[in-house]
């Protein structure tokens, strides 16, 4: 007895392998896009170009300047000679911040008075300006503490307990606080939603456009056989994608991987099955490839990008956005992927997510199979 599913799988596999565009879209594009985004999508603020307008030109003002340029956060671009130059430097974007030290900086400090130091920050990117202000405040506080301890030591006072409460911050899971460690696993999730589901969304509607769909309509083949036969090759293709992207994050981006590869792979397989299923549902319901593509973009890709927790954590979204994130599979896999990558959490921790994705897969395939009518119209 011959198996119809195997026949359909064999046919689909041959068609994909012989179509260079499909193959590129399935394998090459996700890897290229992840590489590009991984290199470009860095949110860390480091090496900010900074300039100084030092009106004092004293040893103390120079020391103050050193305290900035000695940190890895600021990079000295130059000194301004007057206020118009300060203006120009900020306008042209050569520097993101200018520190203006007043003429009586050291005189006042030595006299024990407060000195106002002006910091001009380019606020065209609000989040970056915030970070810059934070850095400035921290460096300033450090400088003050140094001055104070010097002053106290001069006057023979004990300096040991100058700051009774001191914060000792330790960041877990991503100790160096590098965004790539959370962004790259995020891309893995998004890419697996994008391209495999796009290809799957074309796979049945393409046959409707060509007329080959009648081969299924007019033969005794069962509906589940068609859906399963179409899904399996594309799930296989997406699994290859997964392995490639995983290797890319580990070896090219050197993302820390602390968890179990087996658990991550199992989760990825389940997630991929959902994504392909969603694509098939679209393919079953549409009549033209263009419609299928547009619907995939709008209904699968965009929400996965916005509501999966890729950029903003789900917990900090408003309730309606949280509702949306709960019905897209990418949110579940996003949590799992990041958790397994960075926290090394095991299977038992993710049982509820596995269950959620399983239910999702079951529902999606049920819709695809019942939606596939062996009739016109």
């Amino acid at each position, binding site marked *: 007895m*011959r198996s119809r599913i195997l*026949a359909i799988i*064999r*046919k689909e596999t041959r068609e994909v392998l*012989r179509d260079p565009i499909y193959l590129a879209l399935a394998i090459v594009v996700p890897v290229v896009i992840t590489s590009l985004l991984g290199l470009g999508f860095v949110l860390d603020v480091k090496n900010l170009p900074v300039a100084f307008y030092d009106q004092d030109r004293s040893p103390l003002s120079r020391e103050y300047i050193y305290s900035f340029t000695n940190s890895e956060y600021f990079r000295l671009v130059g000194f301004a000679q007057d206020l118009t130059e300060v203006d120009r430097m900020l306008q042209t974007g050569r520097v993101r911040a200018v520190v203006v030290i007043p003429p009586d900086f050291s005189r006042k400090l030595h006299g024990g008075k407060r000195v106002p130091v002006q910091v001009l920050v380019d606020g065209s990117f609000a989040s970056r300006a915030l970070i810059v202000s934070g850095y400035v405040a921290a460096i300033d506080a450090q400088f003050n503490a140094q001055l104070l301890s010097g002053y106290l030591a001069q006057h023979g006072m004990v300096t040991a307990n100058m700051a009774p409460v001191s914060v000792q911050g330790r960041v877990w899971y991503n100790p160096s606080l590098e965004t790539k460690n959370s962004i790259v696993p995020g891309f893995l999730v998004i890419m697996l939603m994008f391209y495999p589901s796009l290809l799957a969304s074309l796979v049945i509607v393409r046959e409707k456009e060509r*007329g080959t769909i*009648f081969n299924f309509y007019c033969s005794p083949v069962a509906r589940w056989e068609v859906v399963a036969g179409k899904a399996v090759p594309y799930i296989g293709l997406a699994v290859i994608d997964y392995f490639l992207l995983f290797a890319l994050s580990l070896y090219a981006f050197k993302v820390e991987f602390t968890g179990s590869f087996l658990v991550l792979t199992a989760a990825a397989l389940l997630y991929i099955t959902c994504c392909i299923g969603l694509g098939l549902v679209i393919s079953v319901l549409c009549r033209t490839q263009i419609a299928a593509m547009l619907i995939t973009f709008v209904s699968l890709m965009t929400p996965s990008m916005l509501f999966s927790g890729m950029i903003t954590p789900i917990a900090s979204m408003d309730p309606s956005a949280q509702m949306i994130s709960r019905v897209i599979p990418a949110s579940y896999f996003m949590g799992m992927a990041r958790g397994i990558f960075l926290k090394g959490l095991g299977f038992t921790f993710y049982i509820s997510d596995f269950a959620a994705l399983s239910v999702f897969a079951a529902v999606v395939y049920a819709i695809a199979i019942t939606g596939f009518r062996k009739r016109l119209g």
Partner: protein
Amino acid sequence: MNAQPVIEARSLYRSYGRWRKKVNAVRNISFEVGRGEIFGLIGPDGAGKTSVIQILAGVLRAQRGVAFVGGSDVLSHPEAVKTLIGYMPQGLGANLYESLTVEENIEFFRDLRKLPDEAFQKNRAELLKMTRLGPFLQRRAKNLSGGMRQKLALICTLIHLPNVILLDEPTTGVDPISRQDFWEIIRRIVEERQVTVLLSTSYMDEAERCHRIALIHAGEIIAQGTPESIVGQASGQYATIRADPQPAALNALRGIKEVLSTQVFGEEIHIRYEGNLEEIEKELMRQATFVRQSSPQAPTLEDVFLQLVSDTARRSPSLHFATAHRRDSDFPIECRGVVRSFGDFVAVDNIDLRVRRGEIFGLLGPNGAGKTTLIKMMCGLLEPSAGTILVAGFEVPKDKDRATAQIGYMSQHFSLYRDLTVRQNLRLYSDLYDVESAKFSHLIDPLGLREFESRLAGDLPVGVRQRLSLLCAVLHAPAVLFLDEPTSGVDPQARRTFWELIYSLSRESGITVLVSTHYMDEANHCDRLGLMDQGRLIAAASPSALKSESERRSGRLLAIYGSPLRMALDALHTGFPSATLYGDVIHLRTLDPQFDEQKVLALLNRAGIREPRVHRVPLSMDDTFIDFIQTAGASHA
């Protein structure tokens, strides 16, 4: 026929859309097909053929009516029917997967049907032999020619030995030789396994290949029965007249009361008349036209179709152009040694051609013969690899800009803007060509477009659309008009009107018309025909000259009747191995008709065949074409 029909359709209804946009595709259609019968649904595009076949294949719901296939109720249990049938959708190889090879396609269909290996091997070998596709098993479907694709599509449909075969326009656009193969396969499987075949076609000349036919028009069956019995329903008499000068003769004929209808086919005028042909002839002579020949003729299926659809006398359109200044040339179209190749593939192979001014020239050939490539080069859209082309005296593509002003082009697909009204479309085209509306406003009435002026082009009936396209193509009074399959699939009545317009353009305005087509029906309207095959022009002459040349070379065609047919054929094969079955008739080509007629009758009588009859019948354009292809192939090889 057997008592229990294999296919039974009773009062089927199907409509699409709702309210004002509602289209009744199938209206009260009933017919039965018995075991071992070939039943043809014959009608123009949009008549409802596809819908009927899809209902019977269980993929389209009928809104009313009953349908049984192989004893199963299609409408309530469509899945039961699907194990019995083989269905081939419309389009050249529409059921094939392009990137799979011939072999992989066949195997996919085997697996879909879970066919046991033994039956598969036997059937596969047989089908490959009949289709001669054996040597191409490893070739991908996308690299097959149109005819080969369609034969592979047929193999895939038949591989699981279905008892009921539903074929939707299986022969449209297929080259004549593949078409012949195709019919031979159908005939053989019907004969050997008594399968039941329901097929649709818009070629009226294929009716004779079927045991019984139904003529479909606007969703209704207007006649049903054997091809012979339907042709027998024709009322009135038909005749062919050749007279000089033809336009005057045509005008005179239209004025004669006894002449019910006229139509020009090249140099012949076909008429339907009442009373006496001699009287009509005399009347023509009186009006100073010289009648070279007039002979009564048997009506064709198309004549019957026209009578059944509408029997009203129709006005005759006439198109007069204020012909623009043009460089005078006696041969507005001239090709010298034109070649066009795409990589290794030679699409147009060394073509020499001259078309006289005012001539209607037809390029006849199957899909892929090179017709479109040649026309594209004539329009200056494609550069020839070698050779020269002159259009209206201008060399293309060198002098393309000046030539374009002299070229009108009407494509096979409706290329006007569907969401503009008729008036807006005309306005747009006249602006594009910089023509004042006064120059063509007098053409709106004769084309019958007045009443449609404010309708959207997309809502027009097919025939009206075609006339609108024609008007847009000739607005700028071109010297040369290119028509790409202008009436393929159009109903006979609209086709007839259209050709009358073309005739008037050619004879009265002196426009040179070049038509490309794979429809033999269209070919007969041309003054001269160029037969194209695999990029070469294998013959160019008037349709009747081509037919008589073929008759001279390969013999007259005899149609032989008798019963039982199978025994008659066996008897004939003892003396004439080349005799072939053609529907319910045996065809035989002979170079000595007088002698062979007697010999045929003697053979049939000796075999005890009842009612043996032999007729000399005119050669069809299809047969003529095949003969030329085979002769050209023999000399080429």
